[in-house]
């Protein structure tokens, strides 16, 4: 009976809001898992809750954490001793333009805001990918050691170099993949498949971990069956 008592009151000293929280969470968890049997109203109800909470959470957080400190405060309520940051009127206008998409007559103005974001993202992507994923990776390949390390490592390093080259060639679209080129491209697919296999393995691991997490919640926090 001690267990039953714990189930409804939690360990001694637990705030009731925590226990209710566990119950709500457990019921919702089970609602979602009911989808495994088949799609049903419980699942749909939980899903509808999820959509609503997710959107409201995001909206409130954006307001409190981004718009207030960056737009509303600098413009309307500057901290004592600070002057009003008039320059923030511009992003304010762009933000309003973005929301004008709701008014068909003025929705074309939202393109200004879109242009701003897309332009910024494009540029930082060019330099970010250019440096992090292209130049640095070229340099890292160039400095692969083929001597001065153990034989095993030399072989593995050679495999790595061949792998990089053949995968790049697989993604070469200007020539038909025939003859020697086709052979190398084929090798590229093999490397890709090993990598995808590794990815698959890791993904299985990740998903299982999440399930373990939920199961731990149900068995430990809610039902107190394990510690």
């Amino acid at each position, binding site marked *: 009976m001690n267990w039953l008592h714990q189930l409804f009151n939690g360990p001694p000293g637990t705030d009731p809001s925590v226990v209710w929280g566990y119950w709500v969470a457990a019921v919702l968890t089970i609602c979602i898992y009911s989808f495994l049997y088949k*799609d049903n109203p419980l*699942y749909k109800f939980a*899903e509808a809750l*999820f*959509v609503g909470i*997710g*959107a409201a959470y*995001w909206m409130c957080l954006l307001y409190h954490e981004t718009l207030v400190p960056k737009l509303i405060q600098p413009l309307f309520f500057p901290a004592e001793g600070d002057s009003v940051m008039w320059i923030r009127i511009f992003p304010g206008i762009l933000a309003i333009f973005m929301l004008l*998409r709701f008014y068909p007559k003025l929705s074309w103005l*939202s393109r200004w805001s*879109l242009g701003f*974001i*897309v332009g910024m*993202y*494009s540029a930082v*992507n*060019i*330099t970010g990918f*250019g*440096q992090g994923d*292209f*130049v*640095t990776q*070229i*340099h890292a*390949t*160039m*400095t*692969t*050691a*083929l*001597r001065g*390390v153990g034989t095993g*490592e030399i072989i593995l390093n050679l495999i790595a*170099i061949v792998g*990089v*080259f053949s995968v*790049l*060639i697989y*993604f*070469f*679209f*200007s*020539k*038909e*993949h025939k003859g020697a080129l086709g052979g190398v491209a084929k090798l590229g697919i093999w490397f*890709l498949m090993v*990598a*995808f*296999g590794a*990815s*698959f393995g890791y*993904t299985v691991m990740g998903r299982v971990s999440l399930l373990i997490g939920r199961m731990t919640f149900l068995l430990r926090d809610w039902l107190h069956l394990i510690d």
Partner: protein
Amino acid sequence: MTMKLTAHLTLAVLFLAAPCAFAQDAAPDTTALPLDTVPPGSVSGLTAVDYVDNSDEGDRIEISWQASPDDGAGEGDVVSYQLWRSENAGADWDSLGVAGAGQTRYLDETATPGTEYHYGVAAYDGTSYSERVSAGPVVGRANLFQMTRLAVLVLMLVFFGMVLTFTKLAERGADLFVRRIPGLNAIEEAVGRATEMGRPVLYVPGIGEIDNIMTIASLTILSHVAKITARYETPLIVPTARAVVMSAAEEVVKEAYAEEGKPDSYNPDNIRYLSDAQFAFAGAVNGIMLREKPAANLYLGAFWAESLLLAETGFEAGAIQVAGTAMVSQLPFFVTACDFTLMGEELYAASAYLSREPKLLGGLKGSDWMKVLSIALMALGVILYYVNQESGFVAWFFTQ
């Protein structure tokens, strides 16, 4: 090997980043007893250079040196390094700061831009200083180029040159060859099959934002798919997870229908914003699959964990599935659960292949030849590295 390298790098950077607060603690203590009459060996290889930071006001000079022979070795009694600065070529020295033992770098953040400075460094062992070594003159300037990014700039410009040249060529009607990408025709086949069966086509442009290049490539392909469905008058359902993507998809599909002369067949209710939340979105798309029974499911764009949910449910529902994404972590599932998969760049190549648009062809061809160039560069680098570890030029060019 990687580990060792990383550990070394870590060590190096940690030394650089060690806060000056510690250096201050190690300041000379004049009351120290008993007297050590042998001064420590002096530092060597002192350099002072204008430091280029990311918001360069020309007020920083980087001073580096090789440790005193008595720092950590020899007598091992060096406790700190004293730094001085002079504005008149070493006639008067002002104390600048202190760096702890083991450190070989100091960042002077108090320089006046445009002033000529000399710097002096001496090792200190608690009682006496080594001979002062000096370097200079050096002038702090607000620099106009970040040299460490030279390689990025050069390779970027070469690449952009190639892209723009090929684009121009394509615009002039040059016949730029692109090999047939297996799986591309599958998209058209799938749409055709849906038409035969009188069932809709489902096109999921991923859950990426509009700034995501995969999403943009997907919208290009969507335009093509919309033209086919307009021609066949097959309903096209486009669920989206991002409001901005929805707006863009609306425009793209509407335009495609108009171009095919079927503006009235365009049904705005079929371009849907479902949810920003990944699984709510996946769940809602799965609902569409089960209720509206599309015969062809096309997943093209940026996908995360929802890929498996979508592909699995589509598989269950018996639809023809064609996927394409550059999100490599999702490719294994698409490869195993879909009829055709466009892997990685094939997605971008697909938009070029389908549209034959000069701009896309230009990008594709530019990338192709850039790959050839980078393979050549890497091969050359590997050989140079084999012959002579890291050659000076390579190290300088990539100054990583």
